[in-house]
C-alpha cells in the first residue's frame, strides 16, 4: 500500500515524543548549537525544510469520479493573493452543513501558511474540468480532495518562498513561509528578522511555474496551524446568525418573478386536462405555463412536468396554484400501496433470491445448527426533507443562461440544464448558494431544469421557482423502502456457524436504467456483502422489488436499513444465546485481520465506497476498537434502573469505523427517550474535529428521527404525507440530550475518510437494542414509533 508522505512521517514518529522527533528530523549540529545558545523554544522553532518529505500520492477513487481532480492542485485555480496580502480561496464543494466550505479551504490555507483571518472564501460555480469533481455527496470531499488541496497549498507556499528567494538573491532553502510572510534564514537556518509579506510577493509568486508534483514538500502535523485544531469557526457563522447568509431563495435579481409548480402526485402521471381560469384571477398571478415532463424510462433527474404559475410574489403563485383545477392521468404507478408492497416484499424475502455473496455453505450450516434465528426488519421510505425546500433562480439573457441554486452537483446540473434548454454548456452558468441542508435530495437537479424551462417560457425573464414543503415531501427521490431478513445458525458451542442476509428493496438504479428489480454494486457495498463477521458460512441474497416511485439516495443510503437489521439481529442472537450483546458483537467481528474480499466470496465488482480496496481496506481491529471505546465511555455493563437500557451498534462505512452506544429511558407513558448517546469513530487522518463532532451530534438527532418518527407511505401511488405535521422529525421535546463523540487518533498510514454519513446508521439499531434491554420488547420496523407499548 502506498502511503502519503505525511502519514509515513507520522509512522516514524509514532510513540516518539514530539520534541525528540523534531531534533531527529532536523539533525543538524549547528541548529542544535544555535538552540543551546539562544534558548530557542522548541515548540515555536521553524523546522528545516529538509525535515519535510516529498509527496507520495496514494490512489483514491477521486480520480475515477467524473472530471477527477481537474486542476485542483493548481494554485492559480484555487488561490488568489491581492497586493495587500488578502488571500482568496475557492471552495468547490457544496456547503450543506458539513463545514466543507471551511474545512477544505483550511487545508490549503494551513499548507500555504496563510493567516486564516486574512483568507476570504469564494464559492466556485459548477466547472468540473477546472475545479475537479464537485458532486458533493458520498462523504468524499475530504477523502478525495485532501491530497490535491495539500498539493495546492504546498505549491503556493513553495512559489512564495521562491519569489522571496529571487527578491533577496538567496537560495530558496533560506526562505521559509511562516504566518503570511516569508522569513529569511541565515546559514544556520535561524531567522534573521528579515521578512516579506505575501501581498508583496504575490505577483512574482503567481508568475512562477507551479512546482512539479514530486518536488512538493508537505508540512508535518506538528506544524499544522489549522488542521486538527478545530479552533476556526465556520466561515459563514456570522452571516448565518445575522440573517445575511444567502441560500437559494435569497437570490434577488432585477425584474425577478416568482413561480411554483403543480406536479403529478403519482410518478409518471400526465395532465389529462386543466383549467387555469381561477388562477388567472388571483391578484399577482401573471401567467400559467404547461411544462412537459420526462416520461420515458429511465427518467434520471428529468423534470416531472406539470403546470407552472408565475406571479409577482411567492405567495401569489401559491394561491394561484391552489386555484388550479387539474385532472391527472396517474398512469401505472397508481397501483402502488405501501401495505400491500410490504407484504409482497416480505413474501419475496422468504424465498431464495439472487446470490450476491457466497462463502462456505450456509444451507448445510443451517441444517446442522443446534439452534437458529430468523428475523425480518422493515423500513418505510424516507424523504430527505432539508429545512430549505428546493428552490432555483434562473434567467436567460443574451443567449446565456444563469442559474443560482442550493445544489450538491452543480456541474451535472449544468450539463442537463444546457441539454433541456438546447444550449451549449459554455453558455450556461450554475452558481452555488449555501444549501439549507441537502442529505442527497439536492444532488438531483430536476428543480433546476424546471426553473430554466420556466424562464425560457418567459423569454428569459429571471424567475425564482420555489418548491413548497408539500412539494418537497411528495415529489422527492425517496430513500428506498425495504425488507431485510436475517437467518443465523448457531453450533453446539454457541458460535454463529451460518449467516444469511436477504435484502428486498427497490433500487436506486431504477432512476437511471430500466428497472430489473434488483439492486446494484453500490447498494450491495453498503452493509450487505461486506458485513465484517468471522463466520464460516455466509450468504447474501437479493430478492426482486420493482420501483413505483423515484428512488434516490438519502444520507447513508442503504446502510440505514441494513445496519438496522444486522445489528438488531446480532443483539437478538446474543439474547437467545444468553450472551452480552457487546461481547457477542466483538466475538462476531472476530480476530484482528484485514478482510480479504476474494476469500470471503465478495462479488468481483465489490464496491468499496468508490475507493481502491488496497488503500482503504476493512480492518477488524479498528472496528473492534471503536466498539470498545464507545462501550467504555458509555459505562457498558453498569446497572441501570428499571425502564432504562443500553444498546450498541457498529459498522465501517465510507472508510470510517463507527460505534454508537445509546442509553434509553422509557417514560411512564411509554415514550422512548435518549438521555445519552456515545459515538466513537475512527476516520483516519482528520482535519476539523469540531465539525466532526457537530456532524455526529446531528446524526444522533437524525437517527432519532428515522428510528422513531419519520416514514413515507404511498396510497394509490401518491405519498400520504405532506408536511412536518405528518412527516415528523425529532423535535427538541425528544432528542438525544447528551451526545459524546470520541475521535480516535489516527495511526500512521490511515487516510482521511468520510464523516457526513457514517455516523447516522448505527443510531437506530443501537436505540432498538437499548429499548429491548430496557423493556424486553423487540422493535423490528422503522419508524418504531415514539412509544413502546
Amino acid at each position, binding site marked *: 500500500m502506498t502511503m502519503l508522505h505525511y502519514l509515513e512521517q507520522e509512522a516514524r514518529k509514532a510513540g516518539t515524543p514530539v520534541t525528540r522527533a523534531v531534533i531527529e528530523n532536523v539533525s543538524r549540529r549547528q541548529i542544535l548549537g544555535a538552540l543551546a545558545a539562544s534558548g530557542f523554544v522548541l515548540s515555536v522553532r521553524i523546522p528545516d525544510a529538509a525535515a519535510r518529505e516529498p509527496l507520495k500520492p496514494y490512489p483514491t477513487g477521486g480520480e475515477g469520479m467524473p472530471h477527477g481532480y481537474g486542476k485542483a492542485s493548481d494554485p492559480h485555480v484555487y488561490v488568489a493573493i491581492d497586493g495587500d496580502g488578502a488571500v482568496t480561496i475557492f471552495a468547490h464543494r457544496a456547503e450543506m452543513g458539513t463545514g466543507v466550505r471551511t474545512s477544505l479551504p483550511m487545508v490549503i490555507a494551513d499548507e500555504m501558511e496563510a493567516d486564516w483571518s486574512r483568507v476570504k472564501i469564494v464559492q466556485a460555480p459548477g466547472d468540473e474540468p477546472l475545479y475537479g469533481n464537485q458532486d458533493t455527496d458520498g462523504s468524499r470531499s475530504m477523502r478525495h480532495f485532501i491530497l490535491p488541496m495539500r498539493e495546492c497549498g504546498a505549491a503556493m507556499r513553495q512559489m512564495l518562498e521562491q519569489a522571496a528567494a529571487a527578491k533577496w538573491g538567496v537560495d530558496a532553502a533560506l526562505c521559509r513561509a511562516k504566518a503570511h510572510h516569508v522569513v529569511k534564514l541565515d546559514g544556520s537556518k535561524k531567522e534573521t528578522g528579515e521578512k516579506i509579506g505575501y501581498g508583496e510577493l504575490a505577483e512574482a509568486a503567481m508568475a512562477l511555474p507551479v512546482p512539479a508534483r514530486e518536488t512538493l514538500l508537505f508540512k508535518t502535523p506538528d506544524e499544522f496551524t489549522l488542521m486538527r485544531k478545530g479552533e476556526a469557526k465556520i466561515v459563514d457563522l456570522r452571516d448565518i446568525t445575522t440573517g445575511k447568509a444567502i441560500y437559494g431563495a435569497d437570490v434577488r435579481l432585477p425584474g425577478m418573478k416568482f413561480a411554483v409548480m403543480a406536479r403529478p402526485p403519482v410518478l409518471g402521471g400526465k395532465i389529462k386536462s386543466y383549467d387555469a381560469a381561477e388562477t388567472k384571477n388571483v391578484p399577482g398571478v401573471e401567467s400559467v405555463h404547461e411544462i412537459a415532463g420526462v416520461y420515458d424510462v429511465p427518467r434520471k433527474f428529468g423534470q416531472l412536468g406539470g403546470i407552472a404559475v408565475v406571479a409577482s410574489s411567492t*405567495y401569489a403563485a401559491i394561491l394561484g396554484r391552489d386555484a388550479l383545477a387539474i385532472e391527472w392521468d396517474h398512469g401505472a404507478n397508481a397501483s402502488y400501496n405501501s401495505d400491500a408492497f410490504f407484504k409482497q416484499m416480505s413474501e419475496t424475502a422468504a424465498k431464495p433470491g439472487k446470490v450476491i455473496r457466497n462463502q462456505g455453505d450456509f444451507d448445510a450450516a443451517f441444517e446442522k445448527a443446534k439452534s437458529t434465528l430468523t428475523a425480518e426488519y422493515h423500513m418505510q421510505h424516507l424523504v430527505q426533507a432539508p429545512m430549505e425546500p428546493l428552490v432555483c433562480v434562473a434567467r436567460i439573457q443574451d443567449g446565456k443562461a444563469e442559474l443560482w441554486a442550493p445544489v450538491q452537483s452543480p456541474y451535472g446540473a449544468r450539463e442537463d440544464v444546457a441539454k433541456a434548454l438546447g444550449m451549449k454548456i459554455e453558455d450556461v452558468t450554475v452558481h452555488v448558494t449555501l444549501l439549507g441542508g441537502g442529505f442527497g435530495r439536492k444532488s438531483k437537479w430536476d428543480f433546476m431544469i424546471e426553473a430554466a424551462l420556466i424562464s425560457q417560457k418567459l423569454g428569459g425573464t429571471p424567475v425564482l421557482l420555489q418548491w413548497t414543503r408539500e412539494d418537497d415531501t411528495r415529489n422527492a427521490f425517496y430513500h428506498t423502502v425495504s425488507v431485510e431478513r436475517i437467518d443465523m445458525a448457531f453450533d453446539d458451542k454457541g458460535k454463529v456457524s451460518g449467516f444469511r442476509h436477504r435484502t428486498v428493496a427497490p433500487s436506486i438504479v431504477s432512476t437511471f436504467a430500466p428497472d430489473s428489480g434488483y439492486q446494484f454494486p453500490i447498494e450491495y457495498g453498503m452493509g450487505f456483502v461486506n458485513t465484517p463477521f468471522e463466520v464460516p458460512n455466509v450468504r447474501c441474497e437479493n430478492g426482486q422489488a420493482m420501483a413505483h416511485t423515484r428512488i434516490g439516495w438519502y444520507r447513508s443510503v442503504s446502510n440505514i436499513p441494513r445496519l438496522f437489521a444486522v445489528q438488531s439481529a446480532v443483539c437478538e442472537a446474543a439474547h437467545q444465546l444468553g450472551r452480552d450483546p457487546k461481547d457477542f458483537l466483538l466475538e462476531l467481528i472476530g480476530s484482528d485481520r484485514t478482510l480479504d474480499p476474494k476469500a470471503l466470496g465478495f462479488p468481483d465488482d465489490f464496491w468499496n465506497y468508490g475507493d481502491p480496496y488496497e488503500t482503504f481496506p476493512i480492518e477488524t481491529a479498528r472496528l473492534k476498537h471503536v466498539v470498545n471505546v464507545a462501550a467504555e465511555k458509555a459505562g457498558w455493563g453498569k446497572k441501570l434502573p428499571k425502564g432504562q437500557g443500553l444498546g450498541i451498534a457498529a459498522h465501517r462505512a465510507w472508510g470510517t469505523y463507527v460505534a454508537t452506544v445509546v442509553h434509553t429511558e422509557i417514560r411512564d407513558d411509554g415514550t422512548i427517550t435518549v438521555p445519552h448517546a456515545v459515538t466513537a469513530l475512527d476516520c483516519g487522518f482528520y482535519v476539523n474535529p469540531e465539525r466532526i463532532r457537530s456532524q455526529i451530534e446531528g446524526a444522533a438527532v437524525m437517527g432519532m428521527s428515522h428510528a422513531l418518527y419519520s416514514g413515507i407511505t404511498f396510497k394509490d401511488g401518491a405519498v400520504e404525507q405532506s408536511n412536518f405535521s405528518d412527516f415528523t422529525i425529532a423535535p427538541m421535546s425528544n432528542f438525544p440530550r447528551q451526545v459524546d463523540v470520541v475521535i480516535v487518533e489516527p495511526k500512521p498510514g490511515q487516510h482521511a475518510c468520510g464523516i457526513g454519513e457514517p455516523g447516522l446508521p448505527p443510531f437506530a439499531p443501537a436505540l432498538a437494542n437499548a429499548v429491548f434491554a430496557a423493556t424486553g420488547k423487540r422493535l423490528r420496523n422503522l419508524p418504531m414509533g415514539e412509544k413502546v407499548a
Partner: protein
Amino acid sequence: MATITVNGESRTIESDPGTPLLWYLRDEAGLTGTKYGCGQGVCGACTIHLDGVAVRSCMTTIGMADGKSITTIEGLNPDGEHPVQKAWRELSVPQCGFCQAGQIMQAASLIAKNNAPSDQEIVDEMSGNLCRCGCYQRIHAAVRLAAGGA
C-alpha cells in the same frame, strides 16, 4: 393599507392584508433572513417578533400586525451582537444554518421574558423550531449560555 414598524422603521403596506408577513418580508421588503420552511407554522424557520414576542411569520398576516411592531433577524441587534447571536457563535451552533434565524428569534423571545430558564423551559419554548441537521444539543446549550449573559 396597514402600518407596521419593521425593525424600528414605520412602513405603510399596501399589499393584501391577508398576506402572511413571511412573504411580505421576503418578496416585498427584501428581508430574506426570515426563512420559509413549511408554511403551516410547524417548523419555526420563519419566526419573527411581534411586539417582542416570537410568532410564526407564515401564519401571521399583514392585517394581524397592523399598528404593531415586528422585528426580524436583521433587526434583532444593529451590530449582530445580541446575547443569543453571540452565544450561537460561541458554541458554533449552526450546521447548514437555514433554521437558525428562527431558532435565534425564538430564543431571544424566551430570554426577554425569562432570563433564567430551566432546562425544561428551554425545551418547551424551543420545541416548535425544527432543525433537520440536528443542532439541538448546541441550541439548548446556547440558549442557556445566552440567558446567563443576558
